[in-house]
């Protein structure tokens, strides 16, 4: 990496953002792989992965703001876009799952009556 030397505290902040983001996103994907039914799986990616990638983008924003001098807001745009779209796609997928009458795990409370949907 042909990096300009960064001051220690900034390097630390960027590293913290990158590591935290990667960990949170990994937990989100782990949830996607292990949770028992579709409706619970929906939670991992919509929250954890979005926040994880958001943290990575903020880290990258700080890094390039320092490398190139002056603030670059473009990564912030991607972050905002992700946070605005994640609930919408989750909503659509949830609706599609209800429509396909996917069953929840047996202990789900107040499972909606799918037959009349």
């Amino acid at each position, binding site marked *: 990496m042909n990096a300009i030397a960064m001051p220690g505290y900034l390097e630390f902040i960027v590293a913290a953002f990158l590591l935290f983001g990667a960990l949170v996103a990994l937990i989100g994907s782990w949830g*996607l792989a292990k949770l028992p039914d579709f409706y619970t799986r929906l939670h991992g990616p919509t929250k954890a992965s979005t926040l994880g990638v958001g943290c990575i983008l903020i880290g990258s924003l700080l890094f390039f703001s320092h490398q190139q001098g002056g603030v670059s807001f473009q990564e912030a745009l991607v972050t905002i876009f992700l946070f605005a779209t994640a609930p919408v796609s989750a909503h659509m997928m949830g609706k599609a799952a209800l429509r396909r009458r*996917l069953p929840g795990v047996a202990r789900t409370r107040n499972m909606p009556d799918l037959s009349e949907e």
Partner: protein
Amino acid sequence: MIDAVVTIAMTLFAVAALLNLYRLAVGPDIVDRILALDTLMINSIALIVLADIRMGLGVLFELALLIALMGFVSTVAMSKYLLRGDVIE
């Protein structure tokens, strides 16, 4: 230090992508596969940004934005197809 951290973060995201691929392969329903693809898209955005930092380019942002757009639109289109049997009403 940043170099090492970027390597670690990329490894973690690669593991996350493998977990998504597992869900994509196992299913059991097609909605699960759509969800897996959506998550894969989000994780690949992070991988692209990390590669950008590693190479010190600072130009791959457009790629990240495009993939975010494509991922959102395709997820909504596929869910919509399952809802109605038609993408456009």
